C-alpha cells in the first residue's frame, strides 16, 4: 500500500487493507484506483451509525514478483526477450497475477508491437483475441480509461490479459486491428461505450448506439437514466438514485 486517501478531515482509522479477507495480500506495488466513503449508503444527518466518516482506499491487486510460477515465467521471458530485441524493454509496466490469471500492463504506445509479438512468437502463439473490454476508473488520475485485451493461445492452451490505460484528457490507444482483425468490432464497442479512440482503426464509428448519440454510455460519469415508478401508492426512484450500499 503506497497511497493513503488524502482526506484531511478523515480521522485516522484502519484502512481496508487491514482486514485481510477483503483485500488480497499486497505484493509489490499496489495502485489506488478510488476511495470508498461511508457505509450503508446513508449521508448527512440521517447517518446515526457512526460509519459515515469511514474512508477507505480502493486498491486493485498489486504487481507480482518473480518467479511467477508455472508457465507464467515462460511467457514473461519470451515476451521480455522479444521486447529486448525490439528495444522496447520498458513496454511492460507491471505484471499482476490474481486468482490464477495473469495480466500484463502495457505502455499504450507499444500495444501493437506487443500484440504482434504475442501472436507471432512460436513460444507465445496467442492466436486468438477473445475481446477488448473498456473499463472506466474515474478516480485513477491520469489513467482513467483502461482497455483490457483477453488473449488465448490455442497452441499452448494459455490465457493472458493485456491492460492498457489512457487518460481521459487524451483517450488514444493504438488499434490492434492490423494484428487481430477480430478487434474491429470490439474496439468500436469500446469507443462507443467509453470514448476510447483507437488510432489506426479502419473505421472507428459507433456500433451499438445510434450514430448521433451524445456521450459514451458506459463511462462512470454517464448517468444510468430512468424515471421514478409508482408502485402501490409509493414512488420508487430509478436504480441510480436509490439509497445504495457502497
Amino acid at each position: 500500500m503506497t497511497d493513503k486517501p488524502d482526506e484531511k478531515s478523515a480521522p485516522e482509522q484502519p484502512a481496508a487493507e487491514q482486514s485481510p479477507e477483503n483485500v488480497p495480500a499486497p505484493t509489490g506495488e499496489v495502485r489506488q484506483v478510488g476511495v470508498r466513503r461511508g457505509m450503508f449508503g446513508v449521508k448527512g444527518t440521517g447517518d446515526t451509525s457512526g460509519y459515515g466518516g469511514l474512508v477507505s482506499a480502493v486498491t486493485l491487486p498489486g504487481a507480482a514478483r518473480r518467479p511467477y510460477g508455472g508457465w507464467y515465467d515462460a511467457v514473461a521471458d519470451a515476451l521480455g526477450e522479444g521486447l529486448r530485441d525490439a528495444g522496447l524493454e520498458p513496454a511492460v509496466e507491471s505484471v499482476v497475477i490474481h486468482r490464477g490469471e495473469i495480466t500484463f500492463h502495457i505502455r499504450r504506445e507499444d500495444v501493437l508491437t506487443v500484440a504482434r509479438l504475442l501472436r507471432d512468437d512460436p513460444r507465445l502463439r496467442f492466436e486468438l483475441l477473445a475481446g477488448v473490454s473498456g473499463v472506466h476508473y474515474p478516480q485513477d488520475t491520469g489513467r482513467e480509461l483502461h482497455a483490457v485485451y483477453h488473449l488465448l493461445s490455442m497452441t499452448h492452451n494459455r490465457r493472458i490479459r493485456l491492460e492498457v490505460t489512457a487518460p481521459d484528457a487524451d483517450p488514444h490507444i493504438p488499434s490492434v486491428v492490423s494484428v487481430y482483425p477480430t478487434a474491429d468490432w470490439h474496439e468500436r464497442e469500446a469507443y462507443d461505450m467509453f470514448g476510447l479512440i483507437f488510432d489506426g482503426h479502419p473505421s472507428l464509428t459507433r456500433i451499438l448506439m445510434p450514430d448521433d448519440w451524445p456521450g459514451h454510455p458506459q463511462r462512470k460519469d454517464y448517468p444510468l437514466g430512468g424515471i421514478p415508478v409508482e408502485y402501490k401508492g409509493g414512488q420508487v426512484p430509478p436504480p441510480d438514485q436509490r439509497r445504495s450500499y457502497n
Partner: protein
Amino acid sequence: MTTNDAFAGTSETSEGRVFTVTGQDWDTITQGLADEGIEERVVVNMGPQHPSTHGVLRLILELEGETVTEARCGIGYLHTGIEKNMEFRSWTQGVTFCTRMDYLSPLFNEATYCLGVERLLDIEDQVPEKAQVMRVLLMEINRISSHLVAIATGGMELGALTVMTIGFRERELCLDLFELITGLRMNHAFIRPGGVAQDLPPGALEEIRGFVALMKKRLPEYAAFCNANPIFRGRLEGIGHLDLEACLALGITGPVLRSTGYPWDLRKTEPYCGYEDYEFDVQTWDTADSYGRFRIRLAEMWESLRIIEQAADRLAGLEGAPVMIGDKKIGWPSQLAIGSDGMGNSLDHIRHIMGESMEALIHHFKLVTEGFRVPAGQAYVPVEAPRGELGAHVVSDGGTRPFRAHFRDPSFTNLQATSAMAEGGMVADVIVAIASLDPVMGGVDR
C-alpha cells in the same frame, strides 16, 4: 403494381431513388430501375425487420445483379444497456440481467458470470458438487434447445418449414424441463454465485430420463429430413466457407471453428464445472461450410444427451446434497418452497428468521438488500456456449456491485465473418451463411 402505397412506395433522396420492399412488389423495383436506366449496382438494406436475419440484424448489401459485392452488418437495434444496468445492482442480482442477453442460451450467460464472480471470491473449490452437476445438466439441455432453434430457423429460411416445426416442437420439451427445474422457461436467473438457486424438484430425474429417451427417437428425424436431402445439401454445401486461418483472425469460435476440423471445445481444453468428469466427444467436420456446421450442431445434440444421461446418473446419487455454498456470507439464505398457491417462501425459513433468531433476520436482510462484497480484481472465465466462447469480464472494486461486467458474446464476434462469408456469393446464400453463424441479436447488442 402498387404506385401509391404509403408504406411501401418510392421516394426521392439526395442519394438517389429509394424503394421500400415489403414483399410481392418486385415489379415496382424492376420497373423503377428500368425507368432510371440503372442496371448493375443496387444497395439493398435487408432488415432490421426481416424474417431471415435472425432478429433485428440489418444487412447492407451491395448487389451486382444477384451477386453480393459488399456486405456490411448494422447492429445495435437490440442494445438495452444490460452491462451498465448490472453496475447498479448487487452481484447476485446481476444474474437476473445477464440471463437476458443471449436469450437462446440464458444458462450459459449465467454460468460464465457466476464462474467469474466465484473466481474473484476465491470460492471455486467450495461450490457444492451437486450445484456443478446441475449446472452441467442445465447447460447441456440449453445447448440442445439452442441448437434446435439454430437448425429450425435455418431450415425455415431455406423454406424447409417442417424442420422449423419439428425443431420448435422439441425445443418445447427442453423448455418444459427448464420450467420444471428452474420455474421459468427463459430468463431463469437460476445459476447464482456459489451454486444454484434451488434443489431439483421431485420427479425431475424421471422427466429428464424420459426427455433423453424421447430425444433419441426424435433426433434421427432431423438426419432423415436433412442429411441426404438433395435440396438441403444443394443450398448448404460450400456456402459460407470460412477456413481455420480466417476463423482465428476473426476470432470465430464454436461450431464454425469446429467445421474447419479443429477440435477446439472449451469443455475439453479448459474444463469448468467439472466437465472433465464426463465422457463425450468433440464433434468436427472438415468442409468449413454451412452444411458442416449443421452436421456439427446435430452431432453435438447427441453428445449433449450423453452428458445429460451421465449428469442424471450422478444426481441420482446426490439426493439431499447441498446446492448452494456453505458460506453463509455468500449463499442465499432461504430456499423457496411450493405453497398451495404454486409459489412461496420456505415457511421453515420464515419461522426461523421471524420467530426464533434476530441474528438470522439481520443476516437475511443484509445479504438480500446489500449483498456480499467481492474482493477487488478482475476475472474472465469463458464457457463453451452453443455459439462459441462466451466469457464475462467481471471487474470488482471491492464493493457489493459489479464495477464493470463485460460479456464477450460469441454472436457479436462471429457476425464479423459476414463480409468474408457473403461477398462474392449470391444474395440468397447470404441468408444461409448467416444462419450457419447462428447469431442471436440479444447477445450481439446486449
